[in-house]
């Protein structure tokens, strides 16, 4: 046999040591960080390409070919307005890419998840770790995409950073997106996961106030009310407040709603996670 255990004397091989949840939690994070680093060559293109093309076409190609966009606001204001929306959509995407999709696989037909949940910590904390690791990846992708959204447009982007708002909105948006990722990851299975993009993510992004500020929807009142159920709206508007002088939804509405969504998605996500792990 191998060398005796570090903790158990050789005459008592049957005593596993007491680990403690925090140690196991940290090790799970370590594993996710390691996998991210190992897969950086996939992470970077999948994170950068979509926002890069979006910004490139809307704020570089269109102004250059004289295609009017941004309505009366004009090209420069449109670039500025788009920065916040792009960041919000990147974070939402990342939450799904980094939490929901791996989770669907782990719950897939060999149920790899059965091993992850045997780590010595409460089941709920395994789910919490997924949210934390996902939120960190969301934050990372926002940091990567921010320079793209700022420097690619042909017309200058006017930034006006509001640090207190930025430093609270960004983590909140990331945690919310990761929690939504957990919820989706436990609700969908390998067979239905294409639907996740087709009928959930696409409508969320098109109607998430990425390409237009919420206030401007005033002329389509029913739509302005309808999109209020979309969490992405509050992320876009929050980032607008944090980064730009563009008019935005009142922060007094943004914060509580974002917080509410975060709590709701986390609670629901952890519950469906538990229900799917246990039979």
């Amino acid at each position: 046999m191998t060398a005796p255990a570090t903790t158990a004397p050789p005459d008592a091989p049957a005593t596993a040591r007491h680990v403690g949840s925090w140690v196991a939690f940290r090790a799970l994070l370590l594993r996710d960080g390691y996998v991210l680093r190992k897969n950086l060559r996939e992470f970077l293109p999948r994170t950068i390409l979509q926002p890069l093309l979006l910004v490139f076409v809307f704020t570089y190609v269109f102004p250059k070919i004289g295609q009017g966009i941004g309505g009366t606001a004009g090209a420069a204001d449109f670039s500025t307005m788009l920065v916040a929306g792009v960041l919000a959509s990147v974070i939402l995407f990342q939450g799904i890419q980094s939490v929901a999709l791996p989770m669907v696989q782990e719950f897939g037909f060999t149920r790899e998840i059965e091993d992850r949940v045997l780590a010595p910590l409460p089941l709920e904390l395994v789910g919490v770790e997924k949210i934390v690791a996902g939120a960190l990846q969301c934050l990372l992708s926002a940091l990567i995409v921010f320079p793209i959204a700022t420097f690619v447009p042909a017309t200058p982007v006017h930034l006006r950073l509001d640090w207190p708002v930025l430093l609270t909105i960004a983590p909140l948006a990331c945690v919310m997106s990761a929690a939504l990722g957990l919820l989706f990851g436990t609700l969908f299975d390998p067979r239905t996961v294409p639907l996740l993009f087709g009928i959930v993510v696409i409508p969320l992004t098109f109607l998430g106030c990425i390409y237009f500020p919420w206030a401007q929807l005033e002329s389509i009142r029913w739509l302005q009310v309808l999109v209020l159920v979309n969490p992405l709206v509050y992320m876009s508007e929050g980032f607008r407040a944090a980064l730009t002088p563009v008019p935005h939804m009142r922060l007094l509405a943004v914060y509580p709603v974002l917080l509410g969504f975060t709590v709701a998605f986390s609670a629901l996500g952890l519950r469906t996670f538990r229900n799917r792990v246990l039979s």
Partner: protein
Amino acid sequence: MSTTASDASEHAPRPSDPPPGAPEVIRTVGLTKVYPGGVTAVDRLDLVVGRGEIFGLLGPNGAGKTTTAGMLTTRVVPTSGSAHVGGVDVWAHPARAKELIGVVPQTNTLDRALTVRDNLYFHGRFFGMSRAVARRETDDLLERFKLTERAAMPVLALSGGMAQRLMVARAVMHRPSVLFLDEPTAGLDPQSRIAMWEILADLHVDGQTILLTTHYMEEADQLCDRLAIIDHGRVLALDTPEGLKRSTGIDTSVVVSAEGDLAALAALLDREIDGSTSARVLDGTVHLGVTGAEGVLPAVVQVAERGGFRVTDLSITEPTLETVFIDLTGKDLRE
């Protein structure tokens, strides 16, 4: 007929008890699982496994083996009853229980995002090993489970036998009080199966307590100190393999292939052969259990031919766990 947990003598150590003096590592009392939809997968299971034992759950598909293992390893919530592992109530303190168990599930649950080596390394880290200790233990285990050459491979590139070895290595890495193996050799080729048996026998020699489920009677017979034969979630018999085979009272099992009405032949043989204890038709043959095998083959041929049956094949075996299972349930253990 068969010895079950309840009808053994009160005084002598009962075969259904763990070896005297060994601390108990697993105890279940009335453990029951009724799945939503009403399937009773495990029905009032009482089990005690002592330290150092290899204990087997032998039963056909759907007997409730995986469900039982699941309830002892924090994955299937019992409907009623209790489960203790290493003195810890599994469902009161699941996180603590998880420190004490090593699990090899029925499916391949290796981390597909990681290499062979990293599967072990991170498992060690989950269980509180420092970086240096996890590295050292990983190298030792790779060596011991003959995986060193594959260390850098993604786990998807492993053969079934190698993947299974890696799962066992991972499960014992944190030195669990008890190792659970759910059908550890199902789907393996004969060579890999024997290699796995050797690994388990080595672990046993090192004192590792093991609970394994299987539907291969040879596996149960070879490896287990004691075993429970289960079907439809119930324990039908619990004893050492030897004890189980003795308990049938059969010392020889005769399999007769013949033309004609086999049920009639079975009845005839049961009536006419001295020492016949049971006769059943299974898979197009007649299975006859006999005590006192002296001259039984010629007698069988004679009786059959006198009754107008043409015997086409005849074989005689020692009783096996298969015999025990057939004796208990009237059906065959094989898939």
